[in-house]
């Protein structure tokens, strides 16, 4: 099937097998290997991208269902040569070790910062709470990091959220 989608600001028209996930389309067909495959089941978050500005697991999205979508991957986060503030903060706070969960953490954090609203741990559901470390931990728990960089990830995100 032929689909057209916007990837990191570039319009791409591709012929895809209906079994292909968005993640495999990016990695195996479009040469965008920044999005990682950690579990292919939506359990680890390494494949997180932004679909129309919202964070989503690319491994759970079929490519054919993305016709007309606007996709941002980790390769599209920076503004040209100027890194996204989250990218700079991740480097500065050593918010990764092996780096394999990092693209997903970054896209997830970028999507999360734009979300607002209460989370499962917010006391008053009518408020838009400040992104404290505790709120960030809750909202970033869909992205696993086996190296255990969580404290530094939280520090980096809280710094950018301010």
């Amino acid at each position, binding site marked *: 099937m032929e689909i057209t989608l916007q990837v990191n600001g570039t319009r791409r028209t591709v012929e895809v*097998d209906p079994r292909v996930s968005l993640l495999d389309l990016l990695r195996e067909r479009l040469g965008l290997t920044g*999005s990682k495959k950690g579990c292919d089941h939506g359990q680890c978050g390494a494949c997180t991208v932004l679909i129309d500005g919202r964070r989503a697991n690319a491994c759970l999205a079929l490519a054919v269902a993305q016709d007309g979508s606007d996709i941002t991957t*980790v390769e599209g986060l920076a503004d040209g040569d100027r890194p996204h503030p989250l990218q700079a903060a991740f480097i500065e706070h*050593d918010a990764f070790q*092996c780096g394999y969960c990092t693209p997903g953490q970054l896209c997830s954090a970028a999507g999360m910062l734009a979300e607002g609203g209460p989370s499962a741990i917010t006391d008053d559901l009518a408020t838009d709470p400040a992104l404290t470390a505790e709120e960030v931990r809750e909202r970033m*728990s*869909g992205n696993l990091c086996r190296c255990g960089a969580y*404290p530094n990830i939280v520090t980096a995100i809280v710094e950018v959220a301010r």
Partner: protein
Amino acid sequence: MNRIEGHDKVTGRATYAAEYPVEGVTYAYPVQAEIARGRITSIDAAGALAMPGVLTVLSSEDPPELAPDADPELGLFQRREVAYRGQIVAAVVADTYENARAAARAVRVTYQEDPHDVRLRSDHPGLYRPEKVNPFYPADTEKGDVAAGLAAAAFTVDVTYTTPAMHNNPMEPHATLAVWSGDGDLTVYDATQGVSTARDMIAKTLGLPAERVRVVCRHVGGGFGAKGTIRPGTMLAVLAARAAGRPVKVALTRQQLFDVTGYRTPTIQRLRLGADADGRLTAVDHEVAEQSSTLIEFAEQTATPARTMYETPALRTAHRLVRLDVASPSWMRAPGECPGMYALESAMDELAIAVGMDPVELRVLNDPEVEPAGGRPFSSRNLVACLLEGARRFGWEGRDPTPGVRRQGRWLIGTGVASSTYPALRRPSQATATVENGGYVVRVAAVDLGTGARTALTRIAATTLGVPPEQVRVELGDSDLPAAPLAGGSMGTASWGSAVVAACEEALRDGKHGAADTTDAIKAQEDLARHSFGAQFARVRVDMDTGEVRVSHLLGIFAAGRIIDEKLARSQFVGGMTMGLGMALMEATVTDEEFGGFSNHDLAQYHVPVCADIERIDAAWIEEDDRHLNPMGAKGIGEIGIVGTAAAIGNAVYHATGIRVRDLPITPARLLA
């Protein structure tokens, strides 16, 4: 120092094994055994071969040619016998991943099934004493008279702790891209912890000279031991590429990882401790039962830390192994020390309670002058300093040992302590340093699996050369570079760094180039007991309505020689402690006794810590000036962080609740039982 490859990693430009762009790449997908033990009677590939895009099917119907002495795990498709459920018995190569996966389901394998035995138990009749335990330690040691020591003791503890099978679960599943050239040379892009060792193992399995094989691994998404040696997926890519005449990519699924890439053996550990009226140990006996597959003998060194930790006139350590119809276990972060110290340090807590002594004081009192089992002097030992500094920072003083009496709302609060230890060894390595374009290029076939090796080696070289780090470029991750040992056993930086320092010193003398090989220097070093030590403190809260345990604070104080880079070191320690928290509270792979294999196969059912599980973790260190290690004065730090964490948390859970859970993980079900 910020990681040298940091920019590549945050922009998605760092290339992992499955990501190298290779013209004409194809995909192999494995077919796994559906029985735990038996014999394959036929493999019908006709249906698969007729499917779209399929190039070939590999199986024991037509065994690929390999070296006759190939390792039975790596020598794929050589035998008709099935050793465990999930073993790779066939594979399909196709033009796309989707076509290969679909056709793999169409391969028909029929079996003659035999009854299987997959359950580890301490009275298994098949238990035997292995010749040695990983990697080269004696299976048993005995000093003094344990029975007499226990009989004479004023206080004794006789307890059995168990740990379940656990899986490393690096974020990057094992992946390999194999490319054969027209003249029979092989290039393998592999997710591995050691490019030189992977090259040698691949060449040996194929029966090729090592020069014909090149292994490249510039970035690897974690390993924690699971990528320390090559696993069947690597050989699958190599053999499939040879059979298809095309480059082949194998990216194992998370589910497949559980079956074919190794795991930490489950353990059953009996600890008998005796102490006199003052708390001085009179006897230590640590006996372990653990498992391996019928294919290979992997005997984890679980009881070895007792040989290092505490002064006692009578000390016995023993390992017993049983070969079951299970997948082959292997290295997982701190094999041996991690499960062994969980049991020993939990038992020490129980002894402290029996004696009526503070658990920090008990450990300080029993700190040895020389290595308890072998009598060798220590190169340096600062366990006591770690315990005292940790106690000071944690606010341990004045702790009421009474369990189950501190309450904050729904939560019961408790604190616990445990010691850590890990050997500080090194292996021979080569390296070169060359003046190029006004700076230095350092070459060594090391691998940076997220430890920060690239950055640490740059600092080591820059310090030796007396130049800023910007003037040094370190090339690693390619077996064409000077041969080096794998990143494992917390030996990477010590091993590679020794060679880098020597090469840089020679380059300074020469003015242009230096080359080093540390084989002789390591052979000539003094026979000392070289170990890192540490102390871990945990504060937990337990909701006794739900059994939920939360770790409010973990503090680790480590004595690991000279710390080469503070930022990287802290990340390593904290990462290890985080994995230790997972071990304490959630990580377990459950053996399927009815069908063989493991029941839980993914990250929804094998839980690892998530961001919300980690509230506060602090790591710090005692500076050590140890001249008996290596030119950097550094001990490895990749593993000690996980050692002792689970015991500290378990001891804190006991302090909070009065419930001693002796089987990991400490789940709500076990607390409420």
